[in-house]
């Protein structure tokens, strides 16, 4: 399916190109990963719910990553980057877990 294909393509590209991440971007990488993960699981759940939409997924993906990075950037400028990153990760983590729980219910009909 098209999603798995895109994912595999991205991983291969990332590993083979493995670009040098600039030093200033490094703190945002983990938070970007978590935010993207939230968007991806949300999309999977919507797909299973039968309400998936391409445009919504792209917008939610990009905005999730950007907003998470923005919050961390703001926190860094204010000197509370660690606390804000923790807050973002907690909220996104809860969302990820509940979305995954819904996906599980769909897949196993539990």
């Amino acid at each position, binding site marked *: 399916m098209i999603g798995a294909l895109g994912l595999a393509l*991205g991983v291969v590209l990332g590993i083979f190109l493995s670009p040098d991440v600039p030093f200033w971007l490094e703190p945002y990488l983990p938070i970007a990963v978590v935010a993207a993960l939230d968007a991806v699981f949300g999309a999977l759940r919507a797909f299973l719910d039968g309400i998936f939409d391409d445009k919504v997924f792209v917008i939610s993906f990009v905005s999730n990553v950007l907003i998470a990075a923005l919050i961390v950037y703001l926190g860094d400028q204010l000197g509370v980057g660690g606390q804000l990153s923790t807050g973002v990760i907690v909220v996104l983590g809860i969302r990820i877990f509940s979305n995954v729980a819904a996906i599980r*219910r769909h897949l196993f009909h539990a």
Partner: protein
Amino acid sequence: MPESHPHRGPVGTAPPQASLLDYITAHSLDEDYAHVAQQRALRGDSERGRPGRGAMAALALFGAIVAVAGVQTARTAGVEAQSHDNLVAQINSGKDVLDSSRERLALLESELARARSDNLEINVAEGREQANERRLGTVAGGLAVRGPGLRVVVDDAVGADEDAEYVLDKDIRNIVNGLWASGAEAIAVNGQRLTPLSAIDFAGSHITVDYETLAAPYTVLAIGDPNRMPSRFVESTTGTAWLNAQQTFGLRFQMDVDESITIPGVSPARLALRVATGGEVEGAQ
């Protein structure tokens, strides 16, 4: 709060006073999906949304981000491990330096203790040497001395016209030798300190001590035990000889005890040795 949306996730409607945690759990799915699906249903578009090129691009981006993050973390881990190893090596070498410094410190401290005890010994020896030097200087006549003793004043007989009625060098020698024999430790004649190199002579009509001409009356100062010296002087041979001469020719003689006599020292040049060598001489007993 978008309470009006029909699709709010399978968890159901959150209670009005839900906690933040409940709210997050209830809204874990982006409401946009539901909203778009509702609009599509209103339009009568029954086609289910399928992932398209946009989703593929987003997922590819996601995969790339994850891969890059992973690669970066692995790379950083290597660098961190290396710097950790570097730090450990630095700590170890620092410990070695510290250990060797401590050993050196202990060594230096023991050397210092040894040097201190050496110094102490040298000081003690120096003190002993100084005391010895003082004693030798006192005995030899190089140092001024002070102490109780006898003041002997002798003079020619009243109206002397014969040689024997004058005080002669022989008489002074008798007195001095008698005083030495009675335990005198330092003697001066008219202020001339007697040393081992002193000579009492007669030149022309005057008595000389160390070639300094003296004039009557002659004052002989002797430092020694003032209680015992007079009696021992009388018992000594030379003292007796003097007393006999004194009584026979009517020479004037007076002997007093003086509790505080000061006798000057001679200049060091007078006691300088130019030829003789002192100390441990082979064959000497």
